[in-house]
């Protein structure tokens, strides 16, 4: 049985993050969903803290969750850790088969939407076109799954429990995808061919613990534009 207030649980929770990282945001959503209190530490990725480098020596990336002094890295691994440590408001389904399906879709999203989107943001020409094509094909599959699983009563992939694992993993698209499109100069979102997905995005944006975390798009665009230009070695156009 879940114990009372989560604030009484032993052990400090710290999250090393970066303001515009969708991977960090996912972890925050999981923590907020569970009502877990945590200290947030903003990292300067151009000058990584000793804590970050010792907590994640292999990848040296955010997010890093530190609980009871133990570091956990990789956003999907962190989310499963959060779900297993704090039992209230389950994120993953209880049934093993449903869990396997949730993990399957999370994997699919990462491999076929998230990673190609990052690659498309940081590339151009033929290389970018290839990635954009991959994302478009993946979005067809996502739309198909949305059509199959969602309706007026069930608005999230978590089903009757509301927001779930797949929603949290896919959630970055509701804010960052438009940014990536604008900065990268391509289009993968299409309300006409993706009506269910767009409904899902609109609903996700309105979730009370999600809405305040979605910052202004202009700031994201400015930052990602700088990253893209740095990556492509382009001179900034003023």
């Amino acid at each position: 049985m879940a114990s009372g207030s989560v604030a009484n649980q032993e052990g400090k929770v710290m999250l090393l993050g970066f303001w515009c990282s969708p991977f960090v945001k996912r972890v925050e959503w999981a923590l907020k969903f569970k009502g877990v209190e945590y200290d947030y530490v903003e990292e300067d990725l151009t000058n990584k803290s000793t804590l970050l480098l010792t907590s994640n020596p292999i990848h040296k990336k955010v997010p890093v969750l530190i609980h009871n002094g133990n570091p956990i890295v990789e956003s999907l691994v962190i989310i499963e850790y959060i779900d297993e440590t704090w039992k209230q408001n389950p994120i993953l389904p209880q049934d093993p088969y449903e869990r396997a399906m949730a993990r399957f879709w999370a994997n699919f999203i990462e491999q076929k939407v998230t990673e190609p989107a990052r690659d498309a943001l940081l590339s151009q020409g033929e290389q970018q076109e290839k990635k954009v094509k991959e994302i478009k094909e993946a979005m067809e599959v996502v739309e198909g799954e949305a059509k199959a699983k969602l309706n007026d009563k069930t608005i999230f992939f978590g089903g009757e429990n509301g927001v779930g694992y797949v929603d949290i993993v896919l959630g970055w698209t509701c804010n960052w995808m438009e940014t990536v499109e604008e900065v990268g100069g391509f289009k993968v979102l299409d309300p006409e061919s993706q009506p269910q997905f767009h409904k899902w995005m609109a609903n996700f944006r309105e979730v009370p613990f999600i809405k305040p975390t979605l910052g202004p798009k202009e700031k994201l665009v400015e930052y990602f534009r700088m990253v893209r230009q740095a990556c492509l070695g382009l001179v900034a156009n003023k």
Partner: protein
Amino acid sequence: MAEEIILLDFWPSMFGMKVRIALAEKGLKYERKEEDLLNKSPLLLEMNPIHKKVPVLIHNGKPICESQIIVQYIDEVWKDKSPLLPSDPYERAKARFWADYIDKKLHLLGGKLWRTKGEEQEASKKEYLECLKLLEEELGDKPYFGGENFGFVDLTLMPYFSWLHVFEIATNFSVEVERPKLITWSKRCMERDSVSTSLPDHQKLYDFFLQLKKWHGIE
């Protein structure tokens, strides 16, 4: 209730090997169907329409895809015997991290090892050994990555060792010399029936590898 377990598999697949080991650890009876990847069966295409890949586990008619997901499913359904993942959430997180690392890094580097030549191949060899060094450090003095018990990370890494023998011959480098602790670990794992019966014969694998190189037009 009578359990029906079918595994759609391809004998040289590292991912298939993982699942075979997991099923054997749990003492489960299953039907193994060998797929011809150049001529995929209607069953495979029906059970894994999105990726069309093996392995696929079909449990009482329901398909589960992706080897890491399958192994976790097996562990959660048949939880009363030979746990593959630790029970502590932090230890589980570490196990998932390393399994991910192995599947992403070693898989990519392994491919580079046999597909490249000269300087590029030398660079890949170096990186591969660096990754194995990290794994050796993680293993430390424990008998298995899982500690006293064989588990998730051990069964993820063993299939790569199966292929490693092939790469060693093909690219002339020796893991025994460079990473002796891992070799000791792999021999310990091979003493388990679940592992030795799940991994292919080295000669057979090497012959398959030569065939694979021919198909890819590599000498």
